[in-house]
């Protein structure tokens, strides 16, 4: 609300005459106003809603309505509008009551002279209040933004004043530590309570280091342990502020929760580690040094990264390769690890390239001197020069600019020296001139001047040197409003080009106030007495001409002095600043306007800030005749400003550390997002490859930066988020301005009007995750390669965790187990659970042994669900990580079924060959003995028969011999035929044969012999009554064994034959025992089942029986065993597999 604008007055008055009287009074008072007269409750109510008055005048007594009611309604509508009661007669009690209820003033109708001033006071006071509210609103909004951004980015900040030990944590800092915001005292002890016990000493050490060391910031990661057991990974940066003696005065910390990326990384890493164990892979740069720092080994990457050939550095001291200034640091690291076995320390140092450049390298030193295989310190590192350089450059440019320019409450901009085109502008200027940043940056300085002033402008700006006060000039806002601005210019270089930095101070109000003062003494007094500014008017000799009430108060506070007119102001100031003040005032008398901000300590401890402005006062002839000193208490503003700056700085710092940018999209138009304004933080610009100083982003520009393939999806996500008022996360590709494709992650949320729920803006943070993504991709690729490799082998691999859970399996493994058990193996299950009983226990035992470092090889056969048999060669070997820890095991199995079967086949063929060979030998034997023997006899007898001198006895005997021999020959030929038949595969059908029916048949067929020898056959086939077999063979077996038992009976003892059947483990067993003469097995075991082998002289045996029994049992797939001793009977056991 400014003085030249119309005051909108809502006047409640039922008497037209009274209303007119008031209107006149106001006109006489010189007020510019618009009046809306209402005469009853209804129209008053409507006007409150529609007219939007600056002030309300109200009669007290109306029909059906009162001033008190009107006040209540007005306050309900908006308590901000000043309410003046204009009334007839009233008691003082009533007036006091109304004032207490919030009435601004109470004016009697018959004495309206005070009305004008009262209105002006009310308006001015209201304006100031509004200004403050706006300012505080802005602060609160900023603060909310910061909180939201911190929360989104999982960024917490905290600080400790090391002098007072007063500390503060941001809400997110509480959350990161697992506390509810504000739940406990933000002390260092409470902070340490949540540090993971394993990292506690480390955190303490690092914090102490940071305070002691000469550098002012330190970064490290540590873990936080929440009460619920959750472990969070925190990237921490500590920053120490020091006084000029170097003593730390403040410690600030920024905590970034990186759990998500760490755990993703760790997950990948653990899988990777398994693969590493399977297939050796080369790492980063790796060098080994001995205890004297001599280089003993370097990986091939040393040459590619640092340019040195092996022979150039092996045997040299490692310090020759380290940047001079980092040597001390490296020694520190080396000493830390040197005396502790397996100690490991991270470092960042510069290492010399062969071309004498230095590379920033990051890595770890690990003491393996004790390890007999290594006997060295292993130094693993990688080149991070690019990243480092980038970091340094960013930090510099950021600091330089941000603090000075962006947050300055004065309007500032940078314009090209030649073209006057604006290159950059700060927030204050944009607010003041009413442009958006994008708009402003398309303009030139000429646009800020009214057209008639442009010529003067160009003249003034030619050849300007350095800091210049350009004086007060007329400036034009976007909406065309003209105002007076005091301008300062400074020539600077901006991105290499000549430019001019302009500071503009809006002094319009003050000038207008002065003008108004000239118009009316009364007005001057009113304003002077009712503003928050103290004014002191002094003449050329510094003698006080006049001052207002506030100035008097300030003087009492600051100077501890009661101001009097005609006093010399210079005499009142402290000796030590007297000369400075004098110098300032002299300059003002020379025509300058000088502004400064000073702080004074009041009551020994309270610091107050004052804005002091010295303005020359001139008469109409432009002669300067005095100075107006205005003093304004800006303590509150200063404090909030400091707070704002501090939190801004925190945010910026946090963003820089986390490489996190933030952005804000205003949602004035939710239909077409391109119509909305978009704001980016500097880090966001950098992420997208823009120079934050040179560019102002627009929606359209942003859209183009999103990778074409991702645009539609992102557009959809944003629109959905707006429609549903929900936050969103996205990961997508962007194309930086330099053409590079990067991957960013966005978290965004909608900020809605808390009352209406209408989305106001979308705030988000953006995080460049390309490196992490690339690393993940690389890991995934290498994993994928390995997977392909593993899946394309014929060997099954299953990786087990130390808990024997399946971590990974390849395709052949999956197929194998599926074939075997019909079940798909799955990760997370225990391998041995896929088997049952003894196999499961055996496997578990083996696995346990492997976890103790053993490597186990074995062969096994399994029956698959389709009843086929597979043979496997299995290997169980431990997976050992770099620290010699067993982190799991590899179960590999090779299908050796083919090999095994061919082995078995070979064995069988060999056995068959041997058997056939034996049979051939046997046949030859039969031919030369059994077959030829009767033939020889026939030949012999025939030869003898030719003799002439044969007696009839001799002749008969020879004929008899011939007869016997021919019969014998026939028998042998018959036997041979029978044998050959048995040996050849028979086509006879298998059928179920009852054992007792066989025995009964035999009893019948050899009934005569049984009767003759009084033989007894006892059988018990209760367990197994019969079998599925070839009947004739089984008959022959029974027959031969029974007739053998009778044949080889003990003389004088009736043969007793016992036959029984039984089963055990799918084996059918037939037992034949007798009480006969038995066989001396020690003597004859080898020949037991030979053809034509006989072990006794006195029977008619041909040596065929047992041979036939054995052949037939074997043909039926069984085995036969004999237990016997001479004279102890025989016991034959025949076993068939069922």
């Amino acid at each position, binding site marked *: 609300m400014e003085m030249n604008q119309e005051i909108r007055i809502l006047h409640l008055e039922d008497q037209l005459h009274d209303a007119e009287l008031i209107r006149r009074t106001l006109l006489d008072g010189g007020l510019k106003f618009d009046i809306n007269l209402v005469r009853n409750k209804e129209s008053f109510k409507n006007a409150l809603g529609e007219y939007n008055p600056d002030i309300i005048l109200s009669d007290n007594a109306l029909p059906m309505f009162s001033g008190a009611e009107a006040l209540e309604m007005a306050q309900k509508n908006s308590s901000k509008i000043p309410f003046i009661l204009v009334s007839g007669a009233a008691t003082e009690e009533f007036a006091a009551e109304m004032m207490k209820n919030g009435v601004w003033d109470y004016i009697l109708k018959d004495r309206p002279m005070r009305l004008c001033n009262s209105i002006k006071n009310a308006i001015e006071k209201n304006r100031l209040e509004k200004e403050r509210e706006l300012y505080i609103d802005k602060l609160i909004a900023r603060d909310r933004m910061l909180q939201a951004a911190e929360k989104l980015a999982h960024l917490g900040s905290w600080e400790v004043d090391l002098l007072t030990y007063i500390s503060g944590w941001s809400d997110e800092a509480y959350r990161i530590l697992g506390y509810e915001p504000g739940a406990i005292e933000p002390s260092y002890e409470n902070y340490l309570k949540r540090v993971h016990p394993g990292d506690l000493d480390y955190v303490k050490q690092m914090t102490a280091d940071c305070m002691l060391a000469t550098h002012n910031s330190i970064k490290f990661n540590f873990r936080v342990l929440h009460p619920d057991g959750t472990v969070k990974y925190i990237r921490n940066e500590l920053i120490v502020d020091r006084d000029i003696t170097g003593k730390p005065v403040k410690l600030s910390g920024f905590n970034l929760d990186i759990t998500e990326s760490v755990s993703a990384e760790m997950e990948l890493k653990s899988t990777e580690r398994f693969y590493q164990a399977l297939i050796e892979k080369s790492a980063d740069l790796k060098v080994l040094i001995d205890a004297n720092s001599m280089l003993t080994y370097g990986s091939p990457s040393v040459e590619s990264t640092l340019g040195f050939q092996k022979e150039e550095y092996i045997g040299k001291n490692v310090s020759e390769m380290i940047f001079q200034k980092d040597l001390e640091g490296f020694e520190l690291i080396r000493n830390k690890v040197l005396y502790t076995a397996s100690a490991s320390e991270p470092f960042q140092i510069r290492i010399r390239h062969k071309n004498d450049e230095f590379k920033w390298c990051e890595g770890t030193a690990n003491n393996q001197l004790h390890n007999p295989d290594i006997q060295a310190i292993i130094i693993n590192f990688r080149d991070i020069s690019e990243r480092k350089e980038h970091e340094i450059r960013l930090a510099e440019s950021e600091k330089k600019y941000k603090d000075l320019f962006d947050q300055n409450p004065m309007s500032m901009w940078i314009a090209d020296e030649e073209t006057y085109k604006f290159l950059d502008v700060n927030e204050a200027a944009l607010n003041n001139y009413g442009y958006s940043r994008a708009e402003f940056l398309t303009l030139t300085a000429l646009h800020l001047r009214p057209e008639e002033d442009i010529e003067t402008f160009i003249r003034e700006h030619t050849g300007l040197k350095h800091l210049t006060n350009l004086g007060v000039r007329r400036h034009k806002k976007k909406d065309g409003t003209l105002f007076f601005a005091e301008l300062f210019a400074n020539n600077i270089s901006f991105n290499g080009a000549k430019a001019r930095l302009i500071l503009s101070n809006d002094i319009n109000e003050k000038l207008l106030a002065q003008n108004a003062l000239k118009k009316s003494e009364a007005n001057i007094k009113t304003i002077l007495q009712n503003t928050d500014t103290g004014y002191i008017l002094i003449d050329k000799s510094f003698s006080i001409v006049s001052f207002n009430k506030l100035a008097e108060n300030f003087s009492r506070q600051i100077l501890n002095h009661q101001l009097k007119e005609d006093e010399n102001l210079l005499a009142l100031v402290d000796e030590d600043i007297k000369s400075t003040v004098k110098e300032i005032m002299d300059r003002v008398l020379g025509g300058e306007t000088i502004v400064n901000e000073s702080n004074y300590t009041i009551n020994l401890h309270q610091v107050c800030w004052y804005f002091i402005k010295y303005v020359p006062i001139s008469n109409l002839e432009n002669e300067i005749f005095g100075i107006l000193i205005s003093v304004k208490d800006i303590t509150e503003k200063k404090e909030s400003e400091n707070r704002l700056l501090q939190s801004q700085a925190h945010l910026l710092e946090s963003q820089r550390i986390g490489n996190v940018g933030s952005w804000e999209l205003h949602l004035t138009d939710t239909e077409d997002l391109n119509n909305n304004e978009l704001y980016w933080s500097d880090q966001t610009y950098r992420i997208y490859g823009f120079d934050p100083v040179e560019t102002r982003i627009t929606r359209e520009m942003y859209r183009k930066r999103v990778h074409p393939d991702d645009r539609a999806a992102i557009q959809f996500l944003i629109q959905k988020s707006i429609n549903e008022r929900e936050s969103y996360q996205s990961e997508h590709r962007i194309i930086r301005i330099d053409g590079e494709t990067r991957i960013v992650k966005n978290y965004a949320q909608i900020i809605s009007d808390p009352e209406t729920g209408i989305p106001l803006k979308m705030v988000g943070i953006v995080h460049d995750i390309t490196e992490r993504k690339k690393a993940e991709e690389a890991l995934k690729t290498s994993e994928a390669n390995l997977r392909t490799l593993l899946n394309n082998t014929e060997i099954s691999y299953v990786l087990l965790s130390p808990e024997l859970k399946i971590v990974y399996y390849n395709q052949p493994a999956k197929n194998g187990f599926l074939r075997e058990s019909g079940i798909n193996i799955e990760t997370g299950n225990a391998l041995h659970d896929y088997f049952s009983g003894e196999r499961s226990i055996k496997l578990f035992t083996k696995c346990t042994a492997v976890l103790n470092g053993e490597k186990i090889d074995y062969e096994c056969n399994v029956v698959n669900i389709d009843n086929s048999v597979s043979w496997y060669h299995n290997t169980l070997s431990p997976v050992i990580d770099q620290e010699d820890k067993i982190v799991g095991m590899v179960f590999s199995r090779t299908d050796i079924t083919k090999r095994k079967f061919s082995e078995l086949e070979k064995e069988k063929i060999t056995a068959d060959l041997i058997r056939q060979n034996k049979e051939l030998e046997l046949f030859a034997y039969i031919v030369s003995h059994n077959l030829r023997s009767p033939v020889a006899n026939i030949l012999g007898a025939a030869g*003898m028969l030719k003799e002439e001198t044969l007696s009839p006895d001799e002749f008969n005997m020879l004929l008899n011999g011939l007869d016997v021999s021919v019969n014998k020959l026939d028998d042998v030929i018959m036997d041979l035929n029978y044998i050959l038949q048995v040996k050849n595969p028979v086509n006879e059908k298998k059928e179920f044969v009852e054992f007792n029916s066989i025995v009964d048949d035999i009893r019948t067929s050899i009934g005569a012999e049984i009767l003759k020898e009084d033989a007894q056959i006892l059988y018990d086939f209760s367990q197994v009554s019969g079998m599925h077999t070839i009947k004739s063979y089984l008959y022959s077996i029974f027959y031969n064994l029974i007739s053998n038992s009778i044949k080889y009976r003990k003389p004088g003892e009736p043969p007793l034959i016992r036959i029984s059947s039984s089963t055990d483990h799918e084996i059918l067993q037939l037992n034949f025992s007798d009480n006969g003469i038995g066989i001396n097995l020690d003597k004859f075991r080898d020949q037991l089942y030979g053809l034509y082998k006989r072990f006794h002289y006195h029977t008619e045996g041909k040596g065929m029986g047992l041979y036939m029994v054995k052949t037939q049992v074997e043909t039926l797939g069984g085995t036969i065993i004999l237990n016997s001793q001479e004279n102890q009977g025989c016991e034959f056991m025949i076993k068939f597999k069922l």
Partner: protein
Amino acid sequence: MGIQFILIDDDTCNNHIINMSLKKYVDADDLRTFTSAEDALEYIRIRNEEIALPKKAIILLDINMPVMNGWEFLERFDKFREKAKMQYKVYMLTSSISKKDIDRSNRNRNVKGYLVKPLTKEKILNLFNEETWSKLTGDQ
């Protein structure tokens, strides 16, 4: 004729024919026949003890016999004292024409010859030709 024949063969038919042939062609008067090699060994053991009447003997030995075959007999026979063994000339008399048997018999130092059945007149006469006899009698 002062030579004893010891025939060891389980084939009785063969034994009859040999008996007849030996009597007919070489007028053998002292012929002992055994169908069990064990019995034959026992007889030779007893005969060896009658040193007062040393008498040359020709053993005709079959190979394929139950319980103890020809080869087993030869193993046991080898254990007799050398002087005792000098009284005997062992001839294998077998129906086997297997080279294996012939080779085996040739390798045995106690075997004088291998005769394949049937034992014809020629084989018998050849066995008892002048030279053989003079040697035999000369040794006496």
